């Protein structure tokens, strides 16, 4: 049988999404299921990441699996000049599954070609981060009860933010989504995604300011403007403080509306929002563990 990887969100079908979300709900009800007993999972983090690594390792622990790996490239043989090819081949001999985060784009797809065991992409540079998208979908499903007819407002860095691109692609698989993009011109949603929506006949609207337009939202998806994505530091300084969500702006938003953020946040969501029941980003981070348990179970056919 061909091995199953998860590299890019578009590698999966709607059926795969629904299966994973169903499993995630099951793990949320009963998180400690020792389905990975006797299995070894390699957690290869070529660049540091607190949230993603810890939630993956928690997921593996809750499934009863063992973890080998490293949490930054400095403590691996990469610092001696070993290629990704060789590291992957070697680890593929030891482990039953590889979870990988790497700063270079396309590294995960390449590792999946080289490895004999399944590879889960835990982020490859600015390219893909599919497990984040699945946990975002799980959070939408949990808070809205459905993935159909959702009006999503995406705010902040829509140009470089890989999470918004992947979420957009995934949500178009469901009935009648509406997208609203709020970003400065420098960080607007790239043409290719807008063209994709047009071709599919999906409605989208573009704004440059947060106004009472957010009163129509079911989901507000905030993103961080990341300094490292800018070639020109002046460009970053110009836009870094443009979109800040404050509690008072939420007064007339819909009762079912929830605010998501992939975290870490810097200042784009004011701390006074945290106590609002519409703030969902910390629960979203908890959903990460259940969703990643579900992804592992799906990939290794554990359930």
């Amino acid at each position, binding site marked *: 049988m061909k091995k199953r990887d998860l590299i*890019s969100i578009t590698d999966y079908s709607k059926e795969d999404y629904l299966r994973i979300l169903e499993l995630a709900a099951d793990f949320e009800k009963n998180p400690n299921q020792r389905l990975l007993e006797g299995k070894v999972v390699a957690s290869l983090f070529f660049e540091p990441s607190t949230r993603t690594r810890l939630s993956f390792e928690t997921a593996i622990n809750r499934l009863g699996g063992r973890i080998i790996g490293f949490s930054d490239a400095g403590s691996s043989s990469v610092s001696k000049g070993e*290629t*990704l*090819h060789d590291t992957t081949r070697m680890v593929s001999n030891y482990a039953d599954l590889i979870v990988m985060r*790497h*700063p*270079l*784009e*396309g*590294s995960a*797809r*390449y590792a999946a070609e080289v490895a004999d065991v399944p590879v889960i992409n835990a982020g*490859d*540079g*600015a*390219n*893909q981060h599919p497990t984040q998208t699945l946990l975002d979908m799980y959070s939408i499903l949990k808070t809205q009860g459905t993935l159909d007819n959702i009006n999503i407002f995406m705010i902040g860095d829509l140009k470089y933010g890989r999470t918004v691109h992947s979420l957009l692609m995934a949500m178009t698989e469901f009935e009648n989504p509406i997208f609203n993009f709020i970003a400065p011109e420098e960080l607007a949603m790239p043409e*290719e995604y807008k063209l994709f929506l047009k071709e599919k006949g999906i409605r989208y609207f573009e704004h440059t300011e947060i106004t009472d337009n957010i009163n129509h939202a079911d989901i507000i998806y905030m993103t961080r403007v990341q300094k490292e994505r800018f070639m020109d530091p002046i460009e970053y300084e110009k836009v870094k403080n443009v979109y800040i969500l404050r509690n008072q702006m939420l007064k007339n938003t819909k009762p079912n509306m929830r605010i998501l953020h992939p975290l870490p946040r810097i200042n784009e969501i004011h701390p006074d929002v945290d106590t609002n029941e519409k703030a969902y980003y910390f629960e979203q981070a908890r959903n990460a563990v259940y969703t990643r348990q579900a992804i592992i179970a799906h990939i290794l056919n554990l359930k």
Partner: protein
Amino acid sequence: MNDHLTKKLKLKVSAINNGTVIDHIPSDNLFKVISILGLQKMKTQITFGANFESEKLGSKAIIKLSDVFFEDDEINKISLIARNAKLNIIRDYKVVEKRVVEVPDKVIGIVKCFNPKCITNNEEITTYFTVISKNPLDLKCKYCEKITHEHQMVIK
């Protein structure tokens, strides 16, 4: 003197008995075409000519290969840098077939990905692109998923 004869005299490169003539190559790309087709490793008789006058290209190059015939897949690789190249298949000193090159659906190992952060630019990996537009050329990298546009294209 009739036109046909004039043309023949102008050609300046000796005729071949059997084989392939690749005409209308942009002069600047002659050596890239040689490299893509691996002609430097061939043992048969090959004649190159560059900087011929051309109405279409301004300056064109020609390659004449004795006893060499290409499969479509192989010759189409040069379409990326010699869009208007024409092939004359020669048998017994006569052109028996004329062919044009076509941009293939996949481009494997010829073009560099424009993205400096792509894994293919940081490790020894054969590049692999899906052609998403043929004119102008847009190539989508299988690895980093970014699109290399025609004006960014660099031949490896």
